[in-house]
């Protein structure tokens, strides 16, 4: 429930940031589908976590180390709204200036996603497809007849 509310808030934030595409996705996936999947997972499993009596020092250590490394990594990021940051000076400038002639599509996001970064998008679709296959393999509906 909280996740759903959070997703809607994030979606409205994206709208104010002029990223309507991301807002669509956030509203539909984050608020709609993810909330449903969360609830149905709760319905399939039990509400309470099993209490474990094992030591949890090593996982805590691993998590802390990775978290610290990630935070350390953010120190190298350019400052917010820094106009000389790589994302403004590198390849994005070319996309903005040349995509009208090279691709001829008014929506720059579509031009970048489908044409310039077609390979990345192919990878994304493959990820989604694989996720579907994985879910089918794990929770496939044919098993119903045998068990349960």
């Amino acid at each position, binding site marked *: 429930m909280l996740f759903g509310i959070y997703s809607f808030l994030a979606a409205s934030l994206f709208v104010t940031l002029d990223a*309507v*595409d991301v807002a*669509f*996705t956030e509203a*539909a*996936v984050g608020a*709609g*589908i993810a909330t*449903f*999947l969360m609830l*149905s*997972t709760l*319905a*399939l499993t039990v509400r309470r976590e099993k209490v474990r009596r094992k030591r949890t020092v090593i996982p805590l250590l691993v998590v802390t180390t990775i978290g610290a490394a990630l935070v350390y990594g953010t120190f190298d990021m350019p400052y917010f709204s820094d106009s000389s940051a790589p994302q403004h000076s590198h390849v994005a400038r070319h996309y903005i200036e040349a995509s009208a002639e*090279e*691709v*001829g*599509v*008014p*929506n720059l*996001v*579509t*031009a970048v*996603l*489908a*044409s310039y970064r*077609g*390979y990345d*998008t*192919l990878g*994304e*679709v*493959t990820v*989604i*497809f694989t*996720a*579907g296959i994985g*879910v*089918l393999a*794990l*929770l*496939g*509906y044919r098993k*119903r007849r045998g068990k*349960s």
Partner: protein
Amino acid sequence: MRPIIQPHNLVLRVAAKMLIPPILMFALYVQFHGETGPGGGFQAGVIFAAAFILYALVFGIGLARAVATERVLRVLASLGMLLYVGVGLASLFAGANFLDFDVLAQERLEGQHLGIFLTELSIGMTVSAVMVIIFFAFAERGVRR
């Protein structure tokens, strides 16, 4: 398949009946208008799947299953994937790089248009089908028969 008569949830059912067609319409708009407006295949697929999920939640999984059978969904998901790779291979056979849309038509921009249209369509197909597949996999697991 016999119609499932549910005496309760009248408001929900009427509201869903009114909402689902516009949602599907909006998904198609986002799909085919993605070149000029915001949106694209992924968003359209997700919105389309959301409409299906809403239908299944309100009217029951059985009725939704009658429309989107397992076979249809699997074929749709795979077909989207194949279409995407096929577009890439088509440009490869036309003498350019993989997924280079310039050579798909006589005119360069025409080729770009065609390529983007086809890839967005394939993304929409795969995404919507996979989302509905995941939904059904979870939902039908919960129904103990």
